């Protein structure tokens, strides 16, 4: 993750802009019926570039500096694929079909907020721990079905 911070607004308020790459795989498994059982695996694979932009406020403290941040995020899908593996079982005979589950949107837009603490460890190096929560408009929308993506991230890192 590359994070650029510009503390020009105020000594405690800074503007944050980050960019990071994520490769995520989501999967689901459902079973319907017993005599005629239908088992479905849906696998969604997305490689994405996430760009959160926001504001950070640092509370006054000497060693451990707590902070909160919030802002908007844009997520660009570099590549995305979905696979729906459906198996229908009747009388111990299983028939498989495989196809694309749906077309993933090209990007997501969302908002995020986080809390963390940081501490200077050497010169300009600062270690930080942060919890960040993000809600986006999801990866799929149409008249009948829509999605929302909620991301919870625990970050441990060094700013320099």
């Amino acid at each position, binding site marked *: 993750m590359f994070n650029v911070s510009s503390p020009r607004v105020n000594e405690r308020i800074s503007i944050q802009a980050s960019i990071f790459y994520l490769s995520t795989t989501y*999967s689901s498994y459902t079973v319907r019926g017993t005599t005629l059982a239908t088992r479905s695996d849906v696998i969604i694979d997305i490689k994405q570039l996430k760009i959160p932009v926001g504001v950070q406020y640092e509370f006054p403290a000497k060693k451990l500096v707590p902070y909160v941040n919030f802002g908007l995020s844009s997520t660009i899908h570099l590549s995305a694929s979905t696979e729906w593996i459906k198996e229908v079982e009747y009388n111990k*005979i299983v*028939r498989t079909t*495989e196809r694309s589950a749906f077309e993933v949107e090209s990007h997501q837009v969302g908002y995020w907020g986080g809390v963390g603490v940081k501490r200077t460890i050497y010169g300009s190096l600062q270690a930080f721990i942060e919890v960040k929560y993000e809600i986006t408009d999801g990866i799929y929308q149409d008249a009948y079905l829509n999605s929302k993506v909620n991301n919870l991230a625990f970050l441990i890192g060094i700013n320099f």
Partner: protein
Amino acid sequence: MRTNQIVLFASLLLMLVIASCSKDIITPREYPRVKTLEVSNISKTGATFNAEIIYQGNQKIIEHGFVWMEYKVLNEVLQSPSLEYSEKVVITQPITTGVFNSEISNAFDAGTKYTIRAYARSNEYLVYGKFIFFTSLN
């Protein structure tokens, strides 16, 4: 400065490692999972059928192979090949997981579209993989 460079390099390395760790997760079943792969070496009357056993399930696979038939749609329903009603190749050599294939010759009419699917049979289950299509050369 040197410390900064080391930290930057370590961070980039960690990002690459994390980014490259991805794996499809499919819930295991009691029965084998068979994936029909693309047909290769297609000629006028022959081809090589390919498939993969992704996992074997709880029981030993006692037979595997391919079934095929000429592409047919009846009352808007695609007719899919089966062991009972179609042409077939039966392999009884033991297999657990991995790719298997079968060379078929003098079995097709030139320029004809066919439906094919792989299968695997355990003591309890018969599992057909997805069906795919190919057309023999004209």
